[in-house]
């Protein structure tokens, strides 16, 4: 599917996507504010789907808001909360409402979230969801039945370049490519040398790769992520740099680091673009992009 986002991916320009986190509740003012702030500065906005298994306003709802306000949404879809009927139905709905980019995720486990006793569905996984999209595009549903009106999507997935061990993740990456992923947004990367190695491998495949940039807000947060978040490794020199920032200026330093990394990736054409995740600090994304010279 040629969407505005897909056009950007194919244009050869350095693509920038960012992330919108829907609210817990019906007060969507802040979300709309973030959409307005970012819609003209990025090529597309991912809307998260109960991120970290925390119940929130739905991704599709956020995507409709992005559309209404003139932005380009990427619908994040996890397999955690819906079976194959519900996933397909939502794809049909998204298509009719102009939401044409989808990021397919397996989804975080239920117990890491805020409804710990809920049933995790996982009827499909991320690569099966990608195949489901391609099946719906062929005019048939997963049951093999004819659709009255098919869909077309620009579909993507995620990959973790810092995973340890990396080999099983790369096998999964290749399965996702084979299943029809057109683009990948990576888990946060901080070690540019290691990422360059990953890109050397990933360039063999006909997909676009957007490097995940997660804003570091303090040395403590950086250390916590390295120790606790799967697939994230923040090199010690960056932690030291944040720790050395004057009191009250760690966030400023984090913005500088993120901007610097984006500029370096762009300068050497390491990858096809970046996916900026400011997790709760969306209002500083324009500053990060300015710092990167974008």
């Amino acid at each position, binding site marked *: 599917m040629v969407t505005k986002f897909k056009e950007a991916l194919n244009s050869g320009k350095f693509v920038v996507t960012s992330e919108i986190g829907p609210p817990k509740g019906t007060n969507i003012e802040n979300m709309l504010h973030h959409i307005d702030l970012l819609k003209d500065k990025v090529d597309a906005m991912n809307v998260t789907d109960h991120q970290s298994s925390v119940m929130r306003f739905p991704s599709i709802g956020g995507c409709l808001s992005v559309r209404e306000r003139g932005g380009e949404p990427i619908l994040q879809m996890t397999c955690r909360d819906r079976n194959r009927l519900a996933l397909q139905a939502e794809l049909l709905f998204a298509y009719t409402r102009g939401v044409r980019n989808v990021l397919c995720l397996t989804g975080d486990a239920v117990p890491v979230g805020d409804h710990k006793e809920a049933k995790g569905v996982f009827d*499909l996984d991320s690569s099966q969801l990608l195949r489901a999209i391609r099946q719906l595009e062929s005019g048939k549903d997963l049951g093999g039945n004819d659709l009255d009106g098919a869909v077309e999507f620009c579909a993507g997935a995620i990959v973790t370049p810092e995973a340890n061990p990396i080999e099983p993740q790369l096998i*999964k990456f290749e399965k996702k490519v084979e299943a029809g992923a057109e683009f990948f947004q990576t888990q946060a990367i901080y070690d540019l040398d290691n990422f360059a190695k990953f890109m050397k491998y990933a360039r063999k495949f006909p997909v676009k790769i957007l490097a995940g940039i997660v804003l570091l807000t303090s040395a403590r947060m950086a250390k916590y992520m390295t120790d606790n978040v799967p697939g994230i490794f923040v090199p010690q020199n960056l932690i030291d740099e944040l720790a050395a920032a004057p009191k009250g200026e760690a966030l400023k330093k984090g913005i500088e680091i993120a901007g610097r990394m984006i500029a370096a990736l762009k300068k050497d054409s390491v990858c096809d673009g970046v996916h900026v995740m400011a997790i709760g600090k969306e209002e500083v994304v324009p500053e990060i992009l300015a710092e990167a010279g974008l």
Partner: protein
Amino acid sequence: MKSITKQKPFEETKGQLDGLDRVFIIGCGTCTTMTKTGGRDEVLAMKEKLQELGKIVTGWTVIPTACDEMTEVAVKENNEAIGNSGCLLVMSCALGVHKVSSYLDKPVIPGVDTLFIGLEDEPGNFHEVCAQCGQCVLGETAGICPITACHKGLVNGPCGGTNRGKCEVDKEKDCAWTLIYQRLNAQGRLELMRKQQPPKNFQAAPRPRTVKIV
């Protein structure tokens, strides 16, 4: 087969016995004896606790294997004491609870929660090995079951939540797909992991599942 159980919190059992003051207790000599959740010692301890509550325990027995046909005989043997009771508290897995209740019209209250079918790896340590999904994939996963050993039951490889070979839901738990990768790699059969597995058939045998073996 080992049915792994844990005793219900006593408060829950107490609540289920509310208004039922005459109780006959049944234990099982197989699985709940092994897991120390419904063998002779646990049945006697339960008897005391119920008596402390002021209940009358009209009798008790530990059936050798509560899920087999001998259960009918055991129920008949204890006909009088069971007849004097208002209900049965069954401290076997749910299979035994079903078996007992098929012979009696009295209320049958389970004393344990049936958790899974598992193996004992070291004394007192049980782990689930089979989800009885009806579509065994062990031949393609180096003998490690991703349906049970992976928290999400994934069939196409690891999720992004795996970290240094461990699972995102429990840092002590091995990531099933890392183990599968290592074993398939050692066997020179990694191509099996590259195979696109289709969505699982969750209706391989529609629930409730039955089978007639001729």
